[in-house]
């Protein structure tokens, strides 16, 4: 009987094509929104979100306004539960929300190699360590900006020589450019000799992050600059607070897309079934059970949704993997990445929508008043 369904869809191919296209566009948007949501969830719930802390200047938000003494690292390192401290100078081309944010993180190359899950896909660490103006660039930034190894990349007063391109299993990392700490501190306009934007604190396995954060702020209260220390996840969520609201709103946009697919496919299927009431009456006269008629219509709507949904999801994943999209604010970024979960989610939602959107017309077809329908012209 699947042949009958496919032939019916093919017979009305313009209608089928338009419905499938509509479903594909809506599922494309749905998956894109889903990837933003996933990116945000990764930032706030990722592996290092609760096992490392960020020490920032108190009451400051944009990285350019946080200026902490670099030697705070020594004091922080003595606090019980701290495994390691990495002073980081951050520079960003835009403190406000942007889709093309460029964020430099200046840190000790050795510490970067030890503490960051980076894998060079082009270039080598030696070159990065030996050249003062060398930088390694995250894959997303490189894709977005068309950067390759050996390029001279300049933005604002910063000009770096690209020593390598890296990828990471933490997608947000791929939106960063790492340089030597000294290089970034002495960049014209930053004037940050001896100062850093933040200290990243790696915790020992058994350390309570909130206790350590309190102790750090307490210990540095007597210093020249007061600090606020938070878990890395909380810090990133806080710096991206405005975006979180927007992403929350975009979430509704995703639901609207689901509603759109539902309405679109349901309308098409209802129209198709109402046009073919006599056909369903003939099928039942021949001996096809009402339940089987119901399944025929459900198969039709599910195929429409599934083909459109899979196409839309596939295109979204392709665009996400090729585009290197990210959104950021105040030095933190959210990476839009394709994922297996997103693929499964897209397919399952399409499948569910296909069944739900076909339910009413399927019941109509199954309960067709046979004699009345047969008497239709």
């Amino acid at each position: 009987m699947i042949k009958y369904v496919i032939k019916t869809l093919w017979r009305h191919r313009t209608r089928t094509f338009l419905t499938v296209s509509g479903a594909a566009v809506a599922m494309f948007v749905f998956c894109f929104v889903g990837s933003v949501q996933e990116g945000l969830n990764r930032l706030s719930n990722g592996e290092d979100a609760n096992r490392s802390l960020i020490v920032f200047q108190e009451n400051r938000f944009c990285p350019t306004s946080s200026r902490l003494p670099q030697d705070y690292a020594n004091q922080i390192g003595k606090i019980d539960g701290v495994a390691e401290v990495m002073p980081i100078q951050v520079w960003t081309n835009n403190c406000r929300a942007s889709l093309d944010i460029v964020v430099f993180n200046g840190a000790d190359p050795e510490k970067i190699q030890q503490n960051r899950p980076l894998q060079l896909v082009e270039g080598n660490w030696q070159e990065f360590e030996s050249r003062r103006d060398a930088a390694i660039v995250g894959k997303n930034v490189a894709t977005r900006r068309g950067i390759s190894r050996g390029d001279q990349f300049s933005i604002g007063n910063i000009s770096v020589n690209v020593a390598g391109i890296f990828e990471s299993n933490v997608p947000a990392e791929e939106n960063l450019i790492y340089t030597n700490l000294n290089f970034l501190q002495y960049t014209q306009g930053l004037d940050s000799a001896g100062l850093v934007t933040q200290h990243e604190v790696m915790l020992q396995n058994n350390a309570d992050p909130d206790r350590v954060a309190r102790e750090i702020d307490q210990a540095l209260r007597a210093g020249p600059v007061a600090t606020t220390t938070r878990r890395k996840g909380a810090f990133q969520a806080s710096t991206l607070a405005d975006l979180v609201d927007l992403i929350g709103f975009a979430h509704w946009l995703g639901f609207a897309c689901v509603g759109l697919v539902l309405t679109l496919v349901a309308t098409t299927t209802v129209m198709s079934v109402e046009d073919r009431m006599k056909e369903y009456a003939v099928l039942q006269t021949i001996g096809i059970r009402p339940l089987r008629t119901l399944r025929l219509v459900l198969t039709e709507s599910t195929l429409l949704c599934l083909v459109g949904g899979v196409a839309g999801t596939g295109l979204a994943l392709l665009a996400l993997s090729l585009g290197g999209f990210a959104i950021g604010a105040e030095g933190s970024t959210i990476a839009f990445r394709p994922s297996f979960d997103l693929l499964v989610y897209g397919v399952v939602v399409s499948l569910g929508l296909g069944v739900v959107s076909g339910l009413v017309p399927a019941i109509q077809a199954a309960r067709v008043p046979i004699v009345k329908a047969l008497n239709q012209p």
Partner: protein
Amino acid sequence: MALVELRNVCKSFTKGDQTITPLDHVDLDIEAGEFVSLMGPSGTGKSTLLNLISGIDRVDEGSISVGGVGVTELSRGKLADWRARNLGYIFQTHNLIPVLTTYENVELPTLLLRLSSAQRRQRVELALEAVGLTDRSNHYPSQLSGGQEQRVGIARAIVAHPQVVVADEPTGSLDTKTSEQIQVLLQRLNQELDITLLMVTHDAEVAAIASRRLLLDEGKFVEQNVDTPLKKS
């Protein structure tokens, strides 16, 4: 016991504020292998009777059994199963599925039976051969003439080897020449394949091909002598 038995069957319709009773406590027996034609003026309930026997409409009172099965007792789903195995329906307007080829239209009822694909193919080929449409098996209904469409409809009705085939004005939408071809075909099916046929028609000439003729008038059956020439109703 007759193959088709109607006992005390009653069926009424409401049209506006009027109640019409086309079938008023009627009884009928049809034996296996019979070819029965049913005539009568418009609105006398001929098609209603076919619909009741087929189980696509429900009686108000009385009972119908076909091959010992109480059709009036079955649920909608079970009736569909029963029709798939035991009843063929020939429509006046052919009612072929437009997206399916001749072969696929005829194959449709066999998909509801427990048959191997080889058995299915054999049955479809035999049915198409019986109606002389083997060479049109890959054509779509839109590529067939009215007479050919009706022959496909007949092949579809007989392919499952049903106990009884009902035909509702099978020549009603055809020209005289094609109508004659269909009449010959129906007679052959009855005589050569021993198919029990119940045919509703307005046309006395068409009714004359049946071995038994019934007239339905004012809710009752009147047996017509096969030797009596029939007038057009």
